[in-house]
């Protein structure tokens, strides 16, 4: 870490798109963690003023459930303050020494987005999905096309999952469903469900976890709703939620198959997450 901050500083912290900083909530030396963090974000402000900061307050499972929210809020407040302090300092330095121009950047732009996470629940999916969402190129094109598809087949909701992580890359929800569905956490929840299911399959079939585990999933819940999840483009699965009805279901499947070609560009060469992001922190790495 020290090395990054000294000799390799410019190298590591130039052209960063996203900084993901992981704090261990149970860390024995919070002051030291914060000190390191301040140094890191200072370097970031110095060399990549547009970078976004995501902070994961990690291993939350170790905290008693009733105390989690308060602990999280308290920690995030300190981190926010440290971030602003570091930012103010760099800005002052820049003004005095004529470094990178930070005049167009405000506090709001550097404010870290924080998530309480643990490898033992779905919280990491929510965090990573937000991060990925910020990184996907052509996001607005994807969103427009999903909306067109959704309206055409009268779906309630469409989700696009990345093939291996099952993170939600993009989504569209009909106006009514968006208003009525009370499960605000359903995207990370379903990521978690499908990812866990993939592990179950891999255990059963004896094939590697990251290889393709299933192709088609259909579920018709009587006169309530229907849903299918199917392989879509090379890198994605699509989930379509529909009102009940056999004919509606079959028509939607056909239309989704046709719409596949609209989304071919999703299979472009660049994997979105790998570009210009750095994961660093005091402890706790994971394979989401």
């Amino acid at each position, binding site marked *: 870490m020290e090395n990054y901050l000294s000799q390799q500083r410019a190298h590591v912290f130039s052209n960063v798109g996203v900084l993901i900083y992981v704090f261990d909530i149970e860390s024995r030396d919070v002051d030291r963690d914060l000190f390191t963090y301040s140094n890191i974000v200072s370097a970031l402000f110095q060399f990549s003023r547009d970078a976004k900061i995501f902070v994961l307050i990690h291993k939350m499972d170790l905290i008693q459930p009733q105390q989690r929210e308060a602990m999280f809020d308290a920690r995030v407040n300190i981190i926010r303050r440290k971030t602003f302090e570091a930012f103010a300092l760099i800005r002052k330095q820049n003004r005095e020494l004529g470094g990178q121009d930070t005049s167009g950047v405000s506090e709001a732009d550097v404010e870290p987005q924080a998530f309480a996470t643990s490898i033992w*629940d779905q919280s990491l999916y929510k965090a990573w999905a937000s991060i990925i969402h910020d990184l996907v190129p052509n996001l607005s094109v994807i969103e427009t096309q999903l909306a067109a598809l959704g309206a055409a087949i009268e779906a309630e909701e469409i989700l696009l999952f990345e093939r291996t992580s099952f993170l939600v890359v993009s989504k569209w929800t009909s106006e009514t469903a968006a208003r009525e*569905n009370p499960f605000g*956490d359903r995207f990370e*929840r*379903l990521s978690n469900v499908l990812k866990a299911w993939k592990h179950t399959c891999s255990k059963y079939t*004896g094939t590697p976890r990251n290889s393709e*585990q299933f192709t088609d999933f259909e*579920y018709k819940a009587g006169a309530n709703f229907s849903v299918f999840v199917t392989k879509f483009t090379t890198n994605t699965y699509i989930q379509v939620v529909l009102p009940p*009805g056999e004919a509606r279901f079959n028509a939607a499947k056909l239309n989704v198959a046709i719409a596949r070609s609209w989304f071919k560009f999703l299979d472009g060469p660049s994997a979105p997450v790998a570009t210009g992001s750095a994961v660093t922190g005091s402890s706790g790495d994971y394979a989401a």
Partner: protein
Amino acid sequence: MATSLTKRTSSTEHRDPHSAPRSRGLYISPATVKLNHIYEQNRQRQQKKDGVKAPEPTATPLAKGKPRLLLMGQRRSGKSSISSVVFHKLPPNETLYLESTARIQKDSLNSFMDFQVWDFPGQIDIFDNPNFTFDMDAIFGEVGALIWVIDAQDDYLEAVSKLNATILHLQRSYPHILIEVFIHKVDGLSDDYKLDIQRDVTIRIQDELSDQGVENASISFYLTSIYNHSIFEAFSKVIQKLIPRLGQLEALLTSLCRTCRFDKAYLFDVNTKIYIATDSSPEDVASYEICSDYVDVIIDFTEVYGSWQRSPGWRAKLEQPPWPKRLEDQIGCDLAESGMILSDAQRPIILREVDRFLALVAIMHEGSYDKMPLINMNVDEVVKGLTEFFEITKPKETRVAGKDSIQGQMEQLALGS
């Protein structure tokens, strides 16, 4: 028509650390119909149909009431953890925060069969208590099974001798009680070591009992852990012993497997993921695991998309062109049905709801995907057979009245959540 799978209550999400602490209350389906009601109804119906012939007497004298499962064993052996994980869906790692039980915790469970689960405090000896005399009849009178939990990661000699003393007490007055020994917390133990412990515990119990002249006590042993499916499997086997006419259910599933080329078929209690019957092919943990996890997937999707009420105009809109038919006539089946294809060998896994508590889950041979239509027909037949078995017949009238009953259910749901 109203079913637990397609119309689930939104039980609180348990994976999210931000959500409010889950209530300890029992999960009860909104459409809960107590099974002894059903049993009663069915018995009456059956009696009308068969004239004087009463329903088949059951193997044990217990089936009439609510079979009771007693969880007993030493302090911290894991009794409360087991009951919380299996019956309250507590994530296993959160059992670390459970407090030691101070008095008997009684849960009753509404399912295809109503049963009670009593979680005993390990710190109290009910047979030899200086402060309090327990009413033995009240405890053991209606018992189905006594589950004795032994911590395999701890020194278990005392647990074994306590269990022996308990069996000796019960032999006199309640000889029909099933004794089920859970050798528990075997996660992290090697397979060899597990089997060694199981052998050792078995021998110690049998030797001592035969020294005391007890030869025919029915005792079964299971290796369990809350961190994997073993605890659900063990509970499944215990519950199966309490189900009247289990053989018929098994025969039904066996014949389904033969006609449809299923590798394995299970009848699940959806709420607990206990399987109450399977076909006669050899036991296979891997199949149970994948089928049980499939139930989880379906439950999650049902909660997220099926547990809330759509707006009033929803139905009217759906019954317009291009599909101008009643919604009931647009769907192929009013019970939940699902299937998925596993990639490795184009192997399908299917789930079919049987009634508000039960679902049939089966995993098929490799490459039987193209036979799906035929399979669906056969599954339909078996689901019918199962429904008849549980004698929860759905007369035509409910179909006509369906709209009202669904609305009713939904209102209940809205009020309940």
